């Protein structure tokens, strides 16, 4: 099964589970969790089910296109279910079966992994799902988001699309994957990985990016001050990404790191608080 078939199959599976099928957000994110469909969707009491692909940028994970599995940008398939149905683990496993994975022939383990995002002020309890020793999904019961204790809780399922494709296509390198039957992952992504790795590790203009970080943080706060939480959140996301670039560039010391993260967290918390004050129904 090629990568785009996997995506279509997951869309199809989750739409039958009552999920809205949405799209990646158009601001850089480090994970599907940062997409407003998850960040705001998990807040408040209203039921919410959604599925979407999220290209996830992790500048420090860049390897100039030289590592078979570590990527500066990978693709997540993100599902959120609020509240989670009691049989959510079984539903998830069925989704793998429908991708053509005969679970009875493999080794499937739910390995403890309590996810947390210090920048989003979020944490949850759950697992990494391992198939034959390869981590293919992060499975989390969110307990808190944006510093707000969630009631009801949500389940987030984050499939690593490249990892699943490696398993299904029995390949060892991501670049050997078929995106569709004609185009390989390498054709689409290798040069981008190489260029962005050089940019993130060596070329990014440190002072300009620090300045941008400051401007975005300011814009976020100014928007929050007038009750515009969605524009504010976009700028919080930009801050998060710019911080990741600075981090990859190696210019953030241990102590600065803490204060950068705390600043972003405060912005995220402000957005969550503002969103709940407006009342989620308006959203």
């Amino acid at each position, binding site marked *: 099964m090629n990568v785009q078939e996997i995506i279509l199959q997951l869309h199809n599976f989750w739409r039958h589970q009552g999920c809205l099928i949405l799209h990646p957000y158009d601001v850089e994110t480090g994970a599907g969790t940062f997409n407003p469909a998850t960040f705001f969707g998990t807040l408040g009491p209203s039921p919410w089910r959604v599925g979407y692909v999220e290209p996830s940028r992790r500048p420090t994970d860049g*390897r100039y296109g030289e590592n078979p599995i570590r990527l500066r940008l990978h693709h997540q398939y993100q599902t959120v279910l609020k509240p989670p149905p009691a049989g959510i683990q079984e539903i998830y496993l069925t989704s793998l079966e429908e991708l053509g994975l005969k679970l009875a022939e493999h080794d499937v383990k739910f390995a403890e992994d309590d996810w947390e995002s210090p920048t989003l002020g979020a944490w949850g309890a759950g697992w990494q799902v391992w198939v034959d*020793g390869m981590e293919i999904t992060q499975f989390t019961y969110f307990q808190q988001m944006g510093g707000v204790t969630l009631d009801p809780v949500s389940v987030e399922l984050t499939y690593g699309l490249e990892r699943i494709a*490696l398993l299904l296509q029995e390949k060892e390198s991501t670049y050997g994957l078929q995106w569709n039957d004609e185009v390989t992952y390498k054709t689409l992504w290798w040069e981008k990985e190489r260029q962005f790795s050089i940019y993130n590790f060596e070329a990014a203009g440190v002072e300009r990016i620090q300045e941008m970080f400051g401007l975005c943080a300011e814009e976020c706060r100014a928007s929050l001050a007038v009750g515009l939480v969605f524009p504010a959140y976009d700028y919080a996301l930009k801050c998060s990404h710019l911080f990741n670039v600075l981090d990859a560039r190696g210019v953030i010391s241990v102590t600065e790191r803490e204060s950068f993260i705390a600043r972003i967290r405060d912005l995220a918390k402000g957005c969550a608080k503002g969103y709940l004050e407006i009342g989620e129904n308006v959203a």
Partner: protein
Amino acid sequence: MPDLLFEIGTEEMPALEVPRLAAELKAESERAFSAAHLAYKRVDLHYTPRRLVLIVRDLASVQEDQVKEVKGPPAAVAFNPDGSPTQAAIGFAKTQGVAVEALERVEVEKKVYAFARQTVPGRKTVDLLPEILPPLVKRLHPSKSMRWDNSGITFLRPIRWLVCLYGKEVIPVTLGTLRASRVTRGHRFLEQEEVTLESAAVYETALEEALVTVDPQAREEAVIGSLKEAARKLKGEYLIDGELLGRIVNGGEHPTPVLGHVSTEFINLPAEVVQATLREEGKFVPFILSDGTSPYFMGFRDGLRDEKGIVRAGFERVVRARLRDSQFFFDKDRHCPLAERVRELRKVIYDVRLGSLWDKVERIRALAGEIVIRTGRGTPADIDRAAFLCKADLVTELVKAFPELQGVAGKIYARLDGEPDTVAVAIHEHYLPSFSGGELPQSDVGIVISLADKLDTVVGALLAGEEPTGSRDPYGIKRQANGLIHLATAKGIDLDFLDLIHVSQEIYTTIEQKVEMSNVVKFLTERVRQFLRHYCNIPADVIAAVSAAEVGNFYRLLRRAQVLTTWRKRETFQSLVIAFSRVRNITKSVETDQFDPKLFTQEAERVLWREYLKVEGQLTRFFKTGDYAEAIERLVVLKEPIDRYFDDVLVMAKEEDLKRNRLGFLSALAGLFLRIGDFSVIVTDNAPS
């Protein structure tokens, strides 16, 4: 009597936490059943990542009858002078539900009261269980609790089903939205997952048929068995620690071995790196062959045998990808010699208050130099080089990826850089022992650096105010101190550490000291006492005895304690203790040990004095060599003259000068003993062996 089965079915719980929670459940249930006066034979404990299981064997079907006594009004109020009940008694009897005639008179603290006594018949077990069992779950203490629905229940992971059978009968225990039934679940990947249980007695066999080994002991034996079998065939050894074993045994309901092969493309990657990658990245168990290579590993699949080799192929593919990552780190690290990396340590904060790793290295160099001077161990040049390089591998890619390779990576890189082998070995050894009772450094250079590093960590953390409290010990200084003490005693390090800490303190010039040095002394003294007690099995009274003498030389302290532990069982020693105790008791508050032999008036005084002089000379020599057994041998000689002294001499003489002189002499005599310890606190009667 029937057995009770109570199974709490969950989504997968963390492997390393399940055993502790299960043990808690067992203890809580035993407590609850005794409190409810329900008799049983024993509680069996089973668990997997998906279930905590109590099986209470031969549980009584009825609670034992209870006698209930309630104190009522004083007899004077309850009964008229003619013995007939008053209104007060009638009312009391009514509220207690007993006949007024049945009220008894009982004296409590010299006053007589009316008492209602009645036998409450025991309730049926089946009625009690729904009250006893659900609260047990709430009394467990998971490291982290989560919510998964709106039932208000929190637990380590979502609870999804309950089974409760008393014999064949379903007990309708409820928890949140769940209600217990006789339907449990077999292995997740069986076609028919649900299993209906006839009775509690068939639980283990029914689940074994459904591919779930509920007994953790049985899973562990199976895992170890397959590792041994494979090791035998491969003519090698398997490498596993308690944590990895726990992850395998409690990470699945039916761990089944899958033997894998490491691709030959990694033939040049050091075996330690291959092993760490296997362990950390895949929870695989590496084997080491007689030629030092690790070309095989064993993974454990949760389920049936991997007949088609699909899991094996998957495991090997993952291992290849991970090893390529490790190879990438290794090759990258080799671009820069270890000695050049030391500079980078300036940028790594060890602790905001205690400076960078570079600062730590500088302190280790200074302390190690001092230890060389004081003990004469190792060559100074090697020690300084090893101290200089000992933390450099912390900034290598390999150690960033596999923190457990700290020291090991340093040793490998130092060798490849052409550093002396003694230096390379010491870089690895200075982290030892890495756990309580673990392997110790063998080389002199390794020993010295290890002592310096540990002492620096302990003193620094304490001065910064990080004294461990309860289970909070962020710097692991209890373990570091234990390692230091273990190393010093096992390797015969003849060095006063309570003196050396002042050197360590002087090196800490920049730090704001939150505590007095006396706290450091107190901390180390307490650690060494604990070490003697729990690690060396020294009896508490002997520890108290030797602690009265000098404690800073841990090696000598242990020697003295061991000698006293052997001696205290001998009859001669017991009479020596009695003799010494007489000397000790009378001189306890005496401040001087000065005396003038010319003031001795009795023959017994002069005899004891002459013996004292002889023994003192001999003891000085034995104390120097640390031969404490010989020293006690000599002290025994003093027993007779001491006894005679107390028979013949009145210490508390009327003449003040005679009295003061005698007390001064006895004080000096006591001082001889006190260099080994305070013999008077040793328990000699029925001394436990």
